[in-house]
């Protein structure tokens, strides 16, 4: 048996490994992977249900508010953009990120409230959860996104509080931003799938 030439008897002391991606960011990335797959499941189910029904959405039910929601979509996208701006400000001066963060939070809150108002008016127009499969899908998919938006809003509120208290770390902010970007960027896909098709 020949001795391995790489087998040196004395090694230099090993160095600390470089942590390329911070813990929180990595954790959130993996979480988002699952979340994307969750919504991929919903979208696939929706596509299959659409294909097996001739009239889609069913003609005898209230129409979804397509234009109004387009405006709302813009509000949410703007919220994401503002948060991205806040992230850049945070790098140079954490205090300067406070105002854009609050703006982003308010835009997100606007989105959620607007959706809520939309749901109430749809419900009063007679579009219930069990009106049709289309309506069921609408409430489940949009509701699942709304839950994520509410969770993201909670995170944004916490971020503002932490920033005020001075305990917000760059990594924590990065991880929280990633989650909000996910909520923001997911919505146009759902809008396209659920409202436009």
């Amino acid at each position, binding site marked *: 048996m020949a001795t391995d030439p790489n087998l040196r008897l004395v090694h230099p002391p090993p160095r600390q490994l470089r942590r390329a991606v911070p813990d929180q960011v990595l954790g959130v990335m993996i979480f988002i*992977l699952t979340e994307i797959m969750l919504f991929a499941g919903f979208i696939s189910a929706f596509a*299959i249900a659409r294909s097996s029904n001739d009239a889609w959405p069913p003609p005898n039910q209230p129409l979804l508010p397509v234009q109004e929601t387009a405006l709302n979509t813009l509000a949410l996208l703007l919220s994401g953009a503002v948060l991205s701006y806040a992230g850049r400000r945070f790098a140079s001066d954490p205090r300067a990120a406070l105002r854009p963060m609050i703006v982003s939070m308010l835009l997100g809150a606007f989105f959620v409230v607007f959706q809520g108002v939309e749901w109430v008016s749809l419900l009063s127009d007679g579009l219930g959860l069990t009106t049709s499969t289309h309506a069921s899908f609408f409430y489940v998919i949009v509701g699942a996104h709304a839950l994520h938006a509410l969770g993201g809003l909670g995170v944004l509120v916490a971020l503002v509080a932490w920033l005020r208290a001075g305990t917000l770390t760059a990594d924590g902010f990065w991880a929280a931003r990633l989650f909000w970007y996910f909520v923001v960027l997911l919505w146009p896909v759902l809008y396209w799938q659920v409202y436009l098709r």
Partner: protein
Amino acid sequence: MGRLVRSWIVAAVCLCPTPALACAVCFDATDENRRAFLDTTIFLTVLPLVLIFGGGYWIYRQTTAPVPG
């Protein structure tokens, strides 16, 4: 070489059989529905792999990137 080409052709032909007419359940309600199952199958299968390998590549690039500052 010829054998390789021939085996690929056979494999390709295998992928598009005429539906077995004796099979009572081999047809869905609509052709559109069958397409939707096929499309979502491809979508669901490819999406996680794209996400995992995309994320993995991004992390790999982060590891090998020069230290900022």
